[in-house]
């Protein structure tokens, strides 16, 4: 279906004109675009079971309704991304409902179940912020027109998720009895989000993805961007995080062994073992985490029930 030559595609992108469909693209570009879209769609989709599981513990009716509003947004964003994939000829019904859980492409963070309301609101403040940073980057830099236009709405809705997370973190931080639990959630979830941004630039440069307008910034730049708002938030609330701003270097510095091994049972980073290799992290990601099977099964259950009887 791709109909453009590589040089015509590159010229188009360099002139700042958007790719509107396969007629403007190469096969290689479309494959890269689909990969990026699948990661984005899967990430939005899996956040629904992850957040719903923890929302059961909402302390009030208002709190539960807010959590549900966020889940609705995430499902809507997933729907938008899968629709874009469908327009590119992907069988999204099979992709969503028939895929093996281990083949989903969302970040490992969502495989670690959120067990409390506290962990849910930290996820809204940390994970949704990571989504906001990543999608914001795509919104500003993507060369694919249909995605760029779809992301205007997504960007605004994620803004509400961040505010919800921050508001609840403020409430929990204001009382010593809830602040301790909040700090425990921050302890594992902060580093989990740092890891989300992936391999550092010295191990993987995304020159091709950037050249073709599939992303705009490198992993390290995006990680910095996330820290530039997440760290001040935590500092303002009197929460300890293993990162600080270094004015001499003009950037945030991570103060713990990174990347590290994660103990899934106790939800704790094994900093005492020192930093591990990114190969070890990638291996953990490939194995997937504890909730992977459960979450995907939940998402697919209605579809499977219908297939069983029809």
């Amino acid at each position: 279906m791709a109909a453009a030559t590589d040089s015509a595609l590159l010229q188009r992108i360099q002139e700042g004109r958007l790719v509107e469909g396969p007629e403007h693209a190469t096969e290689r570009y479309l494959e890269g675009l689909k990969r990026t879209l699948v990661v984005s769609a899967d990430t939005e989709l899996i956040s629904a079971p992850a957040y719903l599981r923890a929302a059961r513990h909402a302390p009030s009716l208002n709190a539960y309704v807010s959590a549900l509003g966020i889940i609705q947004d995430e499902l809507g964003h997933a729907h938008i991304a899968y629709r874009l994939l469908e327009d590119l000829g992907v069988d999204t019904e099979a992709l969503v409902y028939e895929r093996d859980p281990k083949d989903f492409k969302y970040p490992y963070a969502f495989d670690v179940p959120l067990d409390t309301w506290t962990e849910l609101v930290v996820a809204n403040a940390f994970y949704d912020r990571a989504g906001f940073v990543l999608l914001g980057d795509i919104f500003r830099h993507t060369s694919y027109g249909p995605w760029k236009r779809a992301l205007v709405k997504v960007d605004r809705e994620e803004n509400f998720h961040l505010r919800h997370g921050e508001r609840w973190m403020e409430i929990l931080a204001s009382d010593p009895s809830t602040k301790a639990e909040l700090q425990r959630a921050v302890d594992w979830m902060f580093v989990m989000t740092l890891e989300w941004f992936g391999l550092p630039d010295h191990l993987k440069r995304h020159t091709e993805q950037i050249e073709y307008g599939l992303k705009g910034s490198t992993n390290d730049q995006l990680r910095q961007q996330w820290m530039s708002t997440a760290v001040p938030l935590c500092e303002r609330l009197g929460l300890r995080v293993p990162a600080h701003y270094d004015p001499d270097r003009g950037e945030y510095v991570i103060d713990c062994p990174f990347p590290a091994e994660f103990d899934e049972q106790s939800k704790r980073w094994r900093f005492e073992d020192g930093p591990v290799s990114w190969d070890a992290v990638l291996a953990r990601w490939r194995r997937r985490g504890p909730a992977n099977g459960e979450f995907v099964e939940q998402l697919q259950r209605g579809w499977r029930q219908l297939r069983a009887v029809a």
Partner: protein
Amino acid sequence: MPTAEQVRQVLRSVLDPEYPVSVVDLGLVRGVEVQGGVVRVRLTFTSLGCPCVELIQEDVRRAVLQLDGVEDVVVEQVFEPWSRQHISPEGLRRLREVGVV
């Protein structure tokens, strides 16, 4: 003490948490009363299941409290109908910009 019009003016700075449109332009403000140092703001919501009810009420309260002479703000939820017809032309223009309508 502010006038009702001054209160409405400050409410134009209170944006909906999801869309860059003020609660006034979105058609949510259904009455402003000033009595002594107490300001009463009547709000309706786009849906009774709106997930942002608490955020919007807090934002309204905070904004009005900044006005000189205001001692207390009472936000009252009325249950008047809301539909697209209640969005101001300016609100519609902004929503079109962000691809919502």
